[in-house]
């Protein structure tokens, strides 16, 4: 495990300046505009918060991707969650970021805060306590990527084992590789390389990316950590691949990510869940891009229990969240940005989530 003191070196200006020199050289050599998509919302925030983008040469652009769980959750999923409270009289348990996202009717789960019908938790294990405290059905809003899924899955498996009744999971889980595949397949896409998510890769390892990226029409993908030095190193490795004409999956975050990932965590996921087609806000329905509850556990599936209707995509008028998620427009190109869409009163999810690209641009600016 890394010591806290070592984190300071990961923000060492001298190391960063050395990497910057090398990045500048490679960018000169490449002589064209390079667009690198940071897939993960945590990367977006770190890049903006540390001003990494302002250190990059003018022809290297970082663009935000679909890696903010709240941002890729369809607005109609929120409608269903609201319906769970209003009509099904169930207690809805969620991570805080979901609270403020408006559904298709313009209001969010936050209207139930303080009523006891919606509970915010920080760790899925708190679910079990809530279950013990109430006689009403309890539904957990399962959103997130491979990083978050294992702890949620293990909580529910434990619940099943302990025969806890009336505890349900409403899944909207997403997996990263199918999204990369969809972004690559988009002929309008101008993405030259992916900065791959560190936390997700801790679980996945490198192989699932190889299948998508290391082939004809593939592009470089480098797994990066979240400290400034990590990100600069990953960007350097990406430019080096581009300069040398390579298209590989590389690991620039070896202190956390192993090539094989975390097989134990994947086994937990696989026990409860199986791949299924999933609707992404912005990207549409992608084959085998979600994780659905296996039939043998369908008695904890909120969709089955409450007969929730299938999700559909809906965007508030003029909201460019879908385009932002695909990296087609920058947040500050949206007409609502910082005008009638601000973190306190968001129109789209990209301005709500702490990992959303719009929120990060709003907060930290776009200083070149």
């Amino acid at each position: 495990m890394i010591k806290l003191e070592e984190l300071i070196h990961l923000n060492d200006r001298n190391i960063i300046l050395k990497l910057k020199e090398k990045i500048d050289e490679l960018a000169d050599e490449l002589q064209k505009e390079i667009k690198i998509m940071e897939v993960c919302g945590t990367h977006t925030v770190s890049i903006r918060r540390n001003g990494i983008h302002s250190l990059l040469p003018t022809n290297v652009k970082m663009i935000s991707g679909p890696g903010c769980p709240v941002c890729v959750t369809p607005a109609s999923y929120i409608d269903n969650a609201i319906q769970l409270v209003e009509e099904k009289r169930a207690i809805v348990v969620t991570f805080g970021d979901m609270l403020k996202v408006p559904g298709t009717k313009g209001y969010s789960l936050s209207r139930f805060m303080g009523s006891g019908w919606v509970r915010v938790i920080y760790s899925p294990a708190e679910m079990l306590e809530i279950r013990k405290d109430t006689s009403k059905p309890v539904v957990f809003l399962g959103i997130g990527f491979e990083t978050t899924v294992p702890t949620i899955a293990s909580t529910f498996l434990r619940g099943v084992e302990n025969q806890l009744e009336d505890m349900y999971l409403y899944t909207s889980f997403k997996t990263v590789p199918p999204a990369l595949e969809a972004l690559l397949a988009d002929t309008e896409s101008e993405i030259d390389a992916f900065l791959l998510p560190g936390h997700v890769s801790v679980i996945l390892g490198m192989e699932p990316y190889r299948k998508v990226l290391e082939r004809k029409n593939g592009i470089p993908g480098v797994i990066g950590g979240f400290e400034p030095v990590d990100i600069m190193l990953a960007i350097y490795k990406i430019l080096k691949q581009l300069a040398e004409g390579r298209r590989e999956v590389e690991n620039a975050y070896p202190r956390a990510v192993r090539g094989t990932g975390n097989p134990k965590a994947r086994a937990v996921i696989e026990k409860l869940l199986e791949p299924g087609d999933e609707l992404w806000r912005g990207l549409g329905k992608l084959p085998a891009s979600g994780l659905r509850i296996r039939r043998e556990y369908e008695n904890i599936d909120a969709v089955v229990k409450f007969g929730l209707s299938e999700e559909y995509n809906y965007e508030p008028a003029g909201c460019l969240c879908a385009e932002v998620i695909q990296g087609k427009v920058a947040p500050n190109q949206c007409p609502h940005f910082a005008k009638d869409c601000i973190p306190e009163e968001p129109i789209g999810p990209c301005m709500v989530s702490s990992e959303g690209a719009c929120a990060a641009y709003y907060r930290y600016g776009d200083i070149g």
Partner: protein
Amino acid sequence: MHGFIGRSLCGVLQIRRYRLTMMDIIKLEHGSGGALSRKLTEELIYENLKNERYPELSDATILDIKGQFAFTTDTYTIDPLFFPGGDIGKLAIFGTCNDLAVSGAKPLYLSLAFVIEEGFPIADLKRILSSIRRAANEAGIRIVTGDTKVVPKNRGGGIYINTTGIGTREFRHRISGSRIESGDAVVISGPIGSHGIAIMASRESLPVGPQVKSDVAFLYPLCRNLYQLGEDLKFMRDATRGGIAAVLNEAISDTELSMNINESSIPLGEKVDAISNILGLNPLEIANEGVFIAVVRGSRGERALSLLRETRGGDRAQIIGHVDSAYPGKVILETISGGKRILDFPRGLMLPRIC
């Protein structure tokens, strides 16, 4: 407002028979204005806070003030009431004194009002009162009037304190963001983050070690030294809620100027960097209770530093940036990594009831 002490002292002997013990709790009757109220004010509050010049704390006190004075009020609702480095009592005295000091005034008189929740332990109230007495002595101020109310159980957070302060104007020039000019230096009086981290750690029972203590301190001696700069001292504000991010933005947001702040020059309290990393907090947004920001004429930056550093509590003062006009109305942070970004007003409710 009823005074700390009843109109008459003739009931004292009678009351002594029911001496308050450490086992006691505050009851609704303690706020009724009746016998129990008097017992509370006489035996506890008055005993702890009486002073020679104003021996009878009363509903209203005549003060002898000449010239211009500054007037401020603040209410303290902090949770937990006792935390490493201080408690709500010390905070209520120093916090209000500091508001006067950064306005250019010498703190002189304070009022002290309690809203106490039924069931509150008398022993805790005693601890708070003796902390108030020590803080008032250190600050050299006098508590001259006050009030106590009791609210029913579960209708309050244990105890809330309001203090209102009066100080005489010592600094003759205007302290205002509107006096800031391009080229000015931005000075910080000491390391940041300790208060917020200490509160957070005690709330969440984080094992952070004994080094992490709230920085709650009386800032007047530091401010007074800076008054010597005369009109070259333009702006001062203590960096409480919202941290230095809020103060820097308040100073500049209504102007055509921008502030360039160098993150690596900002002094941090013990362990603040590591702990805020774990908790996902930004030290620049964390509340302080013993730090202020000053903006002085650029050529006087070094002088301001030496004035601060020669005073107790100012040894880690730093120049953290300067004023120009590149991004009007914005604070620009050159990050530790060397990148640049906007440092905005803190958003959302980071930590409620921090002071």
